[in-house]
């Protein structure tokens, strides 16, 4: 066995969910041109294995490697796979405000490749809806998008890719399942490898091995035509800042989450005092100038909030870095500080506007980090993470004091 043929390895892996050990001493090796189907009753740990292979779940013992390189181990190390892989989660991992083509383009961008999607979408009867928002699609159509996104890394690659599919048939109509089976077979023949969790008999026939989590059994898979790679071109990968900016710009989530709060703070300040009566109170005026940007930043990272939909955050974290809102807090903070400077100081100073802009960015990034840190909890929205945010008042008040002294 050549090491370059090994696409996925589980070495004596133990995984817990809740307080129970779900997977114990599990070992598995998947080679190029293999389709391994995990088959077993509900709750036996099929999805757990898929999610561990995608580095979404931590492991207690052992390690998991992709293409011969460790991607997660029991010491908590998580390394980004050197080769892109395909992933379809049970809950799709889609953001409703993306169009079909935008989501699939994001996946292709992670693979640093691009192709014409129309022929692929046509095979799943989605070509006429490529520019529709995902939130406007039916459940079955959303599932198709999620499955295509999972298959894409293999569809546009000449070298073997690993594809992880969790219950890909769930919600698909008969035609779509048959198309999926045809694609799995043809991509296998092109050298790609699959790990699939399913109960569907038609997908079981595509398997080269069936694993019931205790033992493997080999079988003769169904045959088909080898996958013909469409015309592809190499593109640069979108970084997390660009993707975050696109999400934020498109959904206006930054304005809805942060901007409105900043303007409300400004409105409340104006309802309390008349700016011209603050003439001799420079420290207070400076606080008022920087407060709207600070409040806007305290509302957190709007992109992180957006990605909590349908486990999109997990999907992004598995595939690449988490998209973050970086550019819009800078712009939003500058706009709010410019307005409040004009109102309370009667003039505009670039240093104050930069301070307001950085204030919004810093707060938004810190709170985004706090939000991400609780993402692995069962109920991340129920945790009281914002109790820790008052500490941000300290650096804010230091900035206010320093700027007051400077002016």
């Amino acid at each position, binding site marked *: 066995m050549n090491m370059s043929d090994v696409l996925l390895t589980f070495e004596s892996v133990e995984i817990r969910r809740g307080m129970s050990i779900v997977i114990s001493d599990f070992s598995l090796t998947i080679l190029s041109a293999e389709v391994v189907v995990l088959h077993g009753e509900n709750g036996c740990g099929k999805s757990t294995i898929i999610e561990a292979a995608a580095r979404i779940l*931590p492991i207690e013992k052992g390690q998991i490697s992709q293409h011969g390189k460790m991607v997660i181990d029991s010491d908590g190390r998580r390394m980004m796979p050197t080769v892109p892989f395909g992933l379809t989660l049970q809950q799709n991992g889609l953001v409703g405000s993306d169009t079909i083509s935008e989501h699939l383009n994001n996946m292709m961008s992670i693979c640093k490749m691009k192709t014409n999607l129309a022929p692929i979408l046509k095979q799943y009867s989605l070509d006429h809806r490529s520019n529709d928002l995902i939130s406007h699609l039916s459940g079955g159509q959303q599932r198709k998008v999620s499955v295509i996104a999972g298959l894409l890394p293999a569809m546009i690659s000449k070298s073997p890719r690993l594809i992880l599919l969790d219950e890909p048939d769930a919600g698909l109509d008969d035609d779509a399942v048959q198309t999926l089976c045809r694609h799995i077979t043809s991509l296998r023949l092109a050298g790609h490898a699959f790990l699939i969790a399913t109960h569907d008999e038609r997908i079981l026939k595509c398997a080269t091995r069936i694993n019931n989590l205790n033992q493997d059994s080999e079988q003769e898979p169904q045959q088909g035509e080898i996958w013909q790679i469409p015309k592809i071109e190499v593109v640069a990968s979108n970084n997390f800042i660009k993707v975050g900016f696109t999400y934020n710009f498109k959904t206006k989530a930054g304005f809805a989450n942060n901007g409105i709060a900043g303007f409300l703070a400004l409105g409340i300040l104006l309802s309390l005092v008349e700016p011209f009566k603050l003439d001799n109170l420079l420290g207070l005026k400076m606080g008022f100038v920087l407060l709207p940007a600070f409040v806007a930043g305290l509302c957190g990272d709007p992109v992180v909030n957006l990605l909590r939909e349908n486990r999109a955050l997990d999907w992004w974290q598995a595939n690449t870095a988490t998209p973050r809102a970086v550019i819009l807090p800078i712009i939003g903070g500058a706009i709010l500080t410019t307005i409040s400077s004009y109102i309370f100081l009667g003039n505009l100073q670039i240093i104050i506007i930069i301070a307001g802009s950085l204030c919004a960015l810093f707060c938004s990034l810190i709170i985004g980090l706090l939000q991400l*840190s*609780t993402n692995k*909890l*069962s*109920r991340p929205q129920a945790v*009281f993470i914002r109790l820790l945010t008052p*500490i941000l008042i*300290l650096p804010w008040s230091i900035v206010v*004091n320093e700027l007051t002294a400077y002016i």
Partner: protein
Amino acid sequence: MGERIRIGFLGLGFVGIMSTLYLGFMWAPSVAIDAFESPAAQKIFYWHVPSAWAAFIAFAVLFVGSALWFFKRSPTGWRLHIAGAEAGLATGLMTVWSGTIWGSAEWGTPWDWSDVRLNTFGLLTLLALFLVLGRRSQPDGIETRDTFSTFGLFGFVLVPFTYIATRIWVIRHPGPVVATGTGGSLHSDMALVLLIGAISFTIFIIGHILTSMHITKLEQRVEMLQREIDRSD
């Protein structure tokens, strides 16, 4: 650890704390009339400083417990984490609450957002509140324990930071009165009452931690029995 020992610690600590308050208010000398803006409010010192001392012990327990769970997966470590967070919350609130009363009388404001020491201690107390409330909002599991123990470890970074802050960034809050390395500036009677207070709070917090660990152990036992019943059904 036997029930009598736990109750003994709590009882002895409670009596000691009450004695400290009595001695502080009735026996210890008052500060010079021109030494403070509000000399009468200085008596809060006998509650404020020992409770802050006890809070640091609780936060140390929280750190040790978090580390034991995070690195060793020790069930005792998790119980220490819970006990440390609960004790840290109780003593942290005692310190912050008494400090704000003293601050109102002495400085004219209950809180100073630009004082590093106040804010880092406030954050430690909020961290304890976050851990106590957050744990109750989540089902017990490996992800919950890992996440909260990570925050427990992070919180302890603030302890040496707060310690250093008391020496570097003294803005409003006075510098340390004990462990200054110069013999201190307290009257011997004041120092004696303060020492009794620190010992009493230490004994009380040990009793609190032991009781909390015992309660968590019982809760875990009930949960295990419930799971066994679920399986047998």
